[in-house]
């Protein structure tokens, strides 16, 4: 066991730090998401020019070929430097790796490079109003007409849809096949008449997510990924893809949030109470545990080629810890932290989504019970 960085890892970290010290996205433009997205897009162009877009992509596809640990280091340093995630994060972490696994050489040639530069933004068309945790219950239809597929249905929780060129779309191509068998994974052009994007307002007030209404949208046959009827397997690649990079980014952000809370609470002289000290000690412990468990997970992945039990628990740990932290912030700072427009108020509300998005806590517990502990399928 050695919890220090190896010389190669240190050199990588120093290189990332050095580049970030000289390159910054600059201050986030105020206002809504519409101002923020171009800012993150320009930031990604800068990352790409510096060779930092797609750090974990193999070099033959234009990436840096970083190890899982280096990828984690990159995302930690990005957060530490206070820089934003690249705009095309879904393309970089989900679409790209899925196309690398399942795509034909022609598809890889066509789609991968523009992901790296953010020239083409990607969104995800998976969940539907009646197909959330039970994704295989999806009903969006794909009907073959000549050498095209005609898509009709509805998707929900599609972030960045309004900025996206392409969509990872799951649709039912064979309604007579069994639930998981009749699904096809399409690469759908968002810029067509049959695609209507409607913003979806969250409890935080803004609309980062969207609904997609698909009515006669068309996808050429060459945009089927992984073969007709094979969509569920391809989707599993997307869903299970190594998102450790993002996890490391989130943890560092949580540590920064805690530090920011300490400063705010100190200014208001709220740190003298032992009961408060207990709760802060608890949070410190949980945030540290999350970091340690995520790092343990990297070792499992590097040694065994697959994730160990750690991956089942880290998302659960992250969401509950962030909810605890944001609640404590309100407790320490009082009603001013609930004022409209207050940053802590936003974090409190946004945190409610953490235990739902990317796999609900209930589903993740069932996955841990079934796949890690080997318990019988849940009822």
């Amino acid at each position: 066991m050695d919890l220090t960085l190896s010389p190669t890892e240190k050199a990588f970290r120093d290189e990332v730090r050095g580049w970030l010290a000289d390159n910054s996205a600059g201050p986030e433009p105020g206002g809504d998401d519409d101002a923020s997205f171009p800012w993150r897009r320009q930031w990604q162009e800068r990352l790409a020019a510096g060779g930092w877009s797609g750090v974990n992509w193999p070099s033959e596809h234009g990436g840096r070929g970083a190890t899982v640990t280096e990828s984690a280091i990159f995302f930690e340093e990005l957060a530490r430097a206070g820089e934003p995630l690249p705009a095309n994060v879904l393309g970089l972490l989900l679409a790209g790796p899925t196309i690398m696994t399942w795509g034909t050489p022609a598809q890889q040639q066509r789609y991968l490079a523009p992901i790296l530069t953010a020239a083409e933004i990607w969104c995800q068309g998976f969940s539907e109003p009646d197909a959330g945790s039970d994704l295989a219950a999806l009903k969006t239809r794909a009907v073959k007409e000549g050498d095209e597929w005609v898509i009709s249905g509805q998707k929900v929780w599609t972030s960045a849809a309004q900025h996206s060129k392409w969509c990872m779309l799951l649709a039912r191509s064979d309604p007579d096949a069994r639930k998981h068998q009749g699904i096809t994974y399409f690469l759908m052009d968002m810029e067509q008449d049959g695609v209507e994007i409607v913003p979806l307002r969250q409890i935080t007030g803004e609309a980062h997510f969207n609904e997609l209404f698909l009515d006669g949208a068309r996808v050429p046959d060459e945009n089927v990924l992984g073969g007709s009827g094979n969509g569920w397997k391809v989707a599993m690649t997307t869903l299970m893809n190594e998102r450790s990079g993002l996890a490391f980014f989130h943890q560092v952000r949580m540590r920064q949030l805690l530090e920011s809370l300490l400063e705010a609470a100190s200014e208001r002289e709220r740190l003298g109470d032992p009961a408060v000290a207990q709760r802060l000690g608890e949070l410190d412990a949980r945030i540290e545990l999350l970091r340690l468990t995520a790092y343990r997970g990297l070792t499992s992945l590097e040694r065994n080629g697959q994730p160990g039990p750690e991956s089942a628990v880290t998302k659960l740990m992250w969401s509950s810890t962030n909810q605890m932290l944001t609640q404590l912030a309100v407790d320490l700072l009082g009603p001013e932290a609930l004022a409209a427009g207050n940053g802590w108020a936003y974090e409190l509300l946004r945190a409610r989504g953490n235990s739902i998005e990317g796999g609900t806590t209930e589903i993740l517990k069932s996955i841990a019970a079934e796949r890690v502990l080997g318990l019988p399928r849940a009822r």
Partner: protein
Amino acid sequence: MNFGLSDEQQEIKRTAHDLLEQRSGFGQVRAAAERGAYDPALWREMSELGWAGIAVEERFGGLGLGYVEAAVLVEEAGAALAGSPLLATLSAAAVLGAAGSEEQRAAWLPRLASGEATAALGFAAEGVAVPVPEAHEADLVVLVEDGRAALFVPAELIVAPFETIDPTRRYARVSVVPGSGEPLPGDPAPALDGAAVLLAAELLGVSDRALAMTVDYVKERRQFEIPIGAFQAVGHRCAEMLVATEGARSATYFAGWAADADPQQRARAAALAAATASDAAREVTAAAIQAHGGIGFTWEADVHWLYKRAQLGAALLGGSGRYRLTLASLLHPDLAAAA
């Protein structure tokens, strides 16, 4: 960066697991608890394998390994609730090794490393320490009071049994004959952090065993025509036990590594391990009783031994609250005053 056990460490853990599975099943644990005495042959076997001296310097007859190796042994012994003075002797030897004079170390460490003598570690206030595991049979008792340590032999102590709800281990109330004992010249603090890590490792083993027993039970037990593990409430509870146990594992292995290799992080890591492992062990063993339903509440079903050891271990650590205050005091200067 490599957060896994080395091949040698895994081998030590595997050997311990296999030995203890055979020599410390619940039948043997129950027998030892009811008899009120350990099986001396088990300690002899542990000593022959070098466990007593795992972290004692080679020049004193030990194996010269570190806290990570000691932790995996203690973890397996905890999982098996093995009746032996292993944890107590390792902890006391660590304090002696860190804070004792050369003469004190030379006088005692070789005998402790061979298993010929055993030791106990206690925390005293005004010359009284309770509960002290294994003090009744110890050849050497190390007591810490106000941050300073001292050595005592049996003649210098009044040792009375302290019966607890955990009969799988012998605890004692120890009081010092006034004016006796030999102070250790050095600072015991680093080794006390190490002792906390070992206790956390034992609690990790207890949690792991409780989870394993629970998983086996809920796969077998059928109600409403299906295994009860298929009910979400049951499966989810097991998932929560997994989260708690894996959290304790991360913290404990990190703290063991820091105790060996990173003095700057040692105190914080030990506090993290102590807080996490205490809470995890109590929650996981309580959840294990619950998951076993009615039989979980019986003496015969053996789940209770783990719950009781978890309670005593957490109490010996002084309660997780104390460690959270330590962590808080390291977070911000204003919190140091509150902690």
